[in-house]
């Protein structure tokens, strides 16, 4: 399998803290890759650089064989690279349908259509029904629970027909039933050909769902491999339990 995302020697410093330190890894097309590591090991910061929110101090990211000339989240999204946030960021005063309509992948000059165009609306309704949010379609996003907001964010990202989705802790703070729903969605979408890079603390889920698993510690790659191998790796055990 070819690499959909290549991260080379990525480095980011915040003042004295080196959040990401020469991090190198690949995400191959068609995989569900996990990115794990202790709190503060730099996972979210890697996401932020990969999706263009932060400019790396050093290193390079290439997606789908191309290097971005400058970081621009919107352009990355339109190229098929999208992400969710650790704390869900939905548009609270827009309805669910509007949240999805906003996320539909459109060139900016095609923006002057009236209302939610029928094609977008139909697709939004489909996706929302899939995520069991269909009944709440006309509600505002702020009326949703934390877990539902995470689902909504995930659903919205799908409107852009992404190739690679980065999920930042999709199950943190979500109730167990919804964790299962989330897992099922990832599997379904994976079968439809979407590649995932998932940051997750819930190890059982990672072991069930992901392959390969990449372990970060202090901003650098510590280990990489099949879930079972990584689980046994003494370095990894040390990073999680020691210091």
């Amino acid at each position, binding site marked *: 399998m070819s690499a959909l995302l290549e991260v080379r020697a990525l480095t980011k410093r915040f003042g004295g803290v080196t959040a990401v330190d020469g991090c190198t890894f690949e995400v191959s097309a068609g995989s569900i890759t996990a990115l794990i590591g202790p709190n503060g090991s730099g996972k979210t910061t890697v996401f932020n650089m990969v999706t263009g929110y932060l400019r790396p101090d050093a290193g390079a990211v290439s997606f789908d064989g191309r290097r971005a000339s400058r970081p621009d989240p919107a352009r990355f999204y339109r190229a098929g690279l*999208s992400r969710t946030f650790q704390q869900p960021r939905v*548009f609270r*005063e827009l309805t669910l349908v509007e949240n999805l309509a*906003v996320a539909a992948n459109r060139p900016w000059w095609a923006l002057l259509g*009236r209302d939610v165009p029928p094609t977008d609306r139909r697709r939004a309704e489909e996706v929302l029904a899939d995520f069991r949010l269909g009944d709440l379609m006309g509600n505002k996003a702020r*009326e949703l629970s*934390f877990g539902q907001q995470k689902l909504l964010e995930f659903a919205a*990202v799908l409107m852009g027909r992404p190739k690679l989705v980065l999920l930042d802790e999709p199950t943190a*703070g979500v*109730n167990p039933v919804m964790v299962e729903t989330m897992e099922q969605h990832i599997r379904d979408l994976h079968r439809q050909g979407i590649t995932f890079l998932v940051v997750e603390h819930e190890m059982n889920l990672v072991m069930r769902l992901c392959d390969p698993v990449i372990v970060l510690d202090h901003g650098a790659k510590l280990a990489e491999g099949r879930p079972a191998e990584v689980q046994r790796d003494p370095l990894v055990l040390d990073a999680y339990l020691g210091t």
Partner: protein
Amino acid sequence: MSSDAEDRTRSQAEVTQEATPGSTRQEGRPIQGSAWKRLTWPARRVLRTAGDRYDRMAKPARLGVSAGMVVLAAAVPVLLPYVTADSGYWTSVATKIGIAALLALGLNVVVGFAGLLDLGYVAFFAVGAYTFALLSGAGRYAIAISRSQPNAFKLLPTWHMYFWLLLFVALLVALIAGVVLGTPTLRLRGDYLAIVTLGFGEIVRITATNLNSLTDGSQGVNQIPHPAINVGSVHYNFGLNNEAYYWLLLAVIVIWIFLLRRVNDSRIGRAWAAIREDELAAASMGIPTIQMKLLAFAMGAAVASLGGVIYASQIGFISPDSFQLFSSDFGSVIILAMVVLGGMGGIAGPIVGAALIIFLPERFRFVGDARFLIFGGVLVLVMVLRPQGILPSRRRAAELEGGEVRETSVFEARQAGS
């Protein structure tokens, strides 16, 4: 890290009350709340039901209501003589309100729709006024030519006729100025944007003061021609007839409102709403945030420029002093106050704000300069009692109040209605 852990426990707590959407809604019951809220409940109720009813109307009915309002507004100069002995004076006030309303509706796109705090808006008003004044040949340049060579070839011999062309030219100039000023600026956010736009407002004014050779500096440009209509057998010079300017302004405002509603109901409107709420998330959903903000900025600039042209041609004289930040006529701060007082993000709000802010000081002229004191007091009072403005768009009201207002979004209501 600790805050992250906190977030997680908080969200765990939220999960227990999962799936009870709408539980935060209260259907506007009058019982709870402060004495003020209880006292004004009927008024707010009337406004709200009027708004709801308008949203639910069929399209022709909505058109009818809008047309009725336009006719009513158009009738104001005709009706004034029956209401007041000093109708000439009040017509000029009405014209002033027209310019203010146009500016407030333009600034509302920037502040209310896209959520960008722009403190230099008057710059574009000045750009329009000066563009018209100079191109119409009222400036020193034209005077110099005709003095030194009285029989010299003139580009446009009868300037009045070209008002309509120059109106269009000024609009284009302002669009370009909006993009030029906006491109470097709009990468900034919040307070920083406010400071830089403030700077731009001053730069334009100071340029007008110091560009002596072109603008006659602080003396200003005078003898700016009035518009005229020369179509077929119709010959009409606007001259000093305030009614004519009033109707012209009304026409421009109606066209602008029509455009605005279209744009705001489109994907652009939703993109603006998303940017206003969370710019970062908007970018992560593929919205080209810079272009969208530029569009709002340029649209606002174009409208301000139209206002500037009409203002210059009506008054016949402009100087840099007309465009001061704190000018009590059309300074950036006053226009912003109109938008905020009236209510951001809608159409009616800025118009009401403009009308009040121009009307009240005129009405209380007899108390002398104390009127500004009273005026300031009223402003403070309104903002304390009704922070979302007098007639906010319901979406904006919900953002500010966190949920007291009824909840179908405007887009959805339209969708259901039409």
